[in-house]
């Protein structure tokens, strides 16, 4: 495969990746279907913003957000059914149940751990060390500006955490299981080792004083933009949208089996971070995964960072001190995607 030069890199030399927007397929079907799948994404974003902007205080609470998220998930699953992007990404019962397991783990166990050592606790600990009152004026900004700031600050953190995961071996070991997914579906963002899910959830947005409603608005932006990272739905994504926001197209490139392509599109919501830092590759890919598309089951996902970390540490010690023979040969295809 020849690949396509993007900046200084060759994308698509190892596995098929469509680079650029010109050859991305469009939604097939009648005018109503075309209309729905062209305007769905912006319409939902504006609807969510309008709802959280005007919802009375008794309704603008976290439990409403949870209920909406549940309904939103069901709606997106229905869209996958109606207008799939690729037949090879179709959600099966087994895939659906597996994804639900990871979501469940996030809602229960990881949530519990997070409440002790997560960003909330860290922020509380460091808040006393500085005079954060200086940022008090943030709450006086227009709500939407606050919401966009929260969303962009959080995504900025995610961008660098994600990029670090692709560039530093110990972090890569936690993130690698997520790259073994071979298709994108609504809940695939939750698939991965719990350590990674904990790390990627860390945000610095909570450091600053924003209005609660601004946090809910930021959550709505994240929900109605970030949700399309992992989804098997074909949209005619508007040009302005795909310039500012992350899309399924971008994220499929990030998940492709092509090594260079995985080193792109790190942001969760705002693809402009990638554009600014030179890691954006516009395009899409269908063939996803690692090691030629080997599926990683739940058991291996749970132990992977520890098992590989142990192997690598032993190999490093043997190389450094030369006293112990290397117990196992280095695993092919487990190098960080860099």
């Amino acid at each position, binding site marked *: 495969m020849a690949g396509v030069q993007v900046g200084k890199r060759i994308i698509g030399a190892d596995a098929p990746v469509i680079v650029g927007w010109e050859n991305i397929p469009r939604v097939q079907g009648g005018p109503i279907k075309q209309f729905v799948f062209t305007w769905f994404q912006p319409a939902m974003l504006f609807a969510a913003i309008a709802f959280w902007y005007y919802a009375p205080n008794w309704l603008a609470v976290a439990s409403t957000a949870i209920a909406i998220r549940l309904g939103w998930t069901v709606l997106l699953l229905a869209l996958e059914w109606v207008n799939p992007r690729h037949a090879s990404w179709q959600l099966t019962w*087994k*895939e659906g149940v597996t994804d639900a397991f990871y979501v469940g783990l996030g809602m229960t166990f990881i949530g519990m751990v997070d409440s002790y050592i997560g960003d909330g606790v860290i922020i509380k600990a460091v808040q006393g060390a500085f005079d954060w009152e200086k940022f008090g004026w943030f709450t006086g900004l227009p709500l939407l500006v606050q919401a966009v700031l929260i969303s962009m600050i959080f995504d900025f953190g995610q961008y660098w955490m994600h990029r670090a995961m692709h560039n530093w071996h110990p972090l890569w070991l936690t993130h690698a299981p997520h790259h073994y997914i071979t298709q994108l579906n609504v809940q695939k963002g939750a698939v991965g080792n719990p350590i990674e899910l904990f790390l990627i959830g860390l945000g610095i947005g909570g450091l600053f004083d924003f209005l609660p409603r601004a946090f809910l608005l930021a959550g709505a932006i994240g929900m109605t933009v970030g949700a399309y990272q992992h989804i098997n739905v074909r949209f005619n994504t508007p040009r302005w949208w795909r310039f500012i926001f992350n899309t399924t197209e971008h994220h499929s490139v990030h998940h492709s089996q092509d090594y260079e392509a995985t080193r792109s599109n790190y942001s969760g919501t705002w693809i402009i971070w990638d554009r600014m830092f030179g890691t954006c590759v516009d395009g899409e890919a269908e063939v996803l995964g690692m090691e030629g598309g080997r599926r990683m089951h739940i058991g291996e996902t749970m132990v992977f960072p520890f098992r590989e970390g142990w192997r690598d540490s032993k190999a490093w010690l043997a190389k450094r001190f030369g006293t112990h023979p290397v117990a196992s040969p280095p695993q092919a295809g487990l190098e960080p995607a860099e």
Partner: protein
Amino acid sequence: MNESAGPWGAAASAPARALRGFAIPYIDMIWRVRGEVPVDASLSPEEAFARLDPLLRTPGTTLRVEGGALTYAKHNPAAQDKLATFTRGRLWIEPAGAGAVLRFDLFSHALLLCFLAPLLFLGFAQLAVSLNAYEAAAAKAEASQKDKKKDEDKPKPVKKLNPIDEFLGAPAPEDPSKKKKDKKDDEDEGRHSPEPGYFLAGLFAALYLLGRWLEPWLARRRFRAALAEPVDSAAS
């Protein structure tokens, strides 16, 4: 069995009937699926298995035909493997009335784990309840030793909306001191909520029931479709 009429006679008398491993009556229905689909009476067992071959011969699958029965085992099948849910299986052909049927006995790790998943999430819910109880007891002990710190000494200022938002009609933020009063009622509930655990236990029970019905139905449909498809001699 002495039925020797038709092409099935010889094969039908020999094959081992079921999958090796656990065979617990009724209970093993949780993870095992048994059933049958009709087979064209003119097909020999070899021809029938040849028709099933494309369905079964997928990456990570080992196949064996022995004693008139086809046994397969899948090691971590691909997401789109048509039989991914059933990681082991045995298929054989039996005469039935004037014709014959393909009988199958399939084993599913996924169904078993999905059946057990509610227990895990009930466990997490119970963990949440236990942690809350432990933390409440610890907080009580601490409170009896020290005088309770008063949070109220520093009343939080009421935040104001930006004039643009006021103009556009967004509801004003609540008075934080007023909010605290309502919050006191929630304090007894503790840091962790067991509710997601209960919800997920219910969800996985529902998903299990869906899978136990859907997956055998799909397997039967796929076997039937594969058996109806003549083998492409060029491909075989």
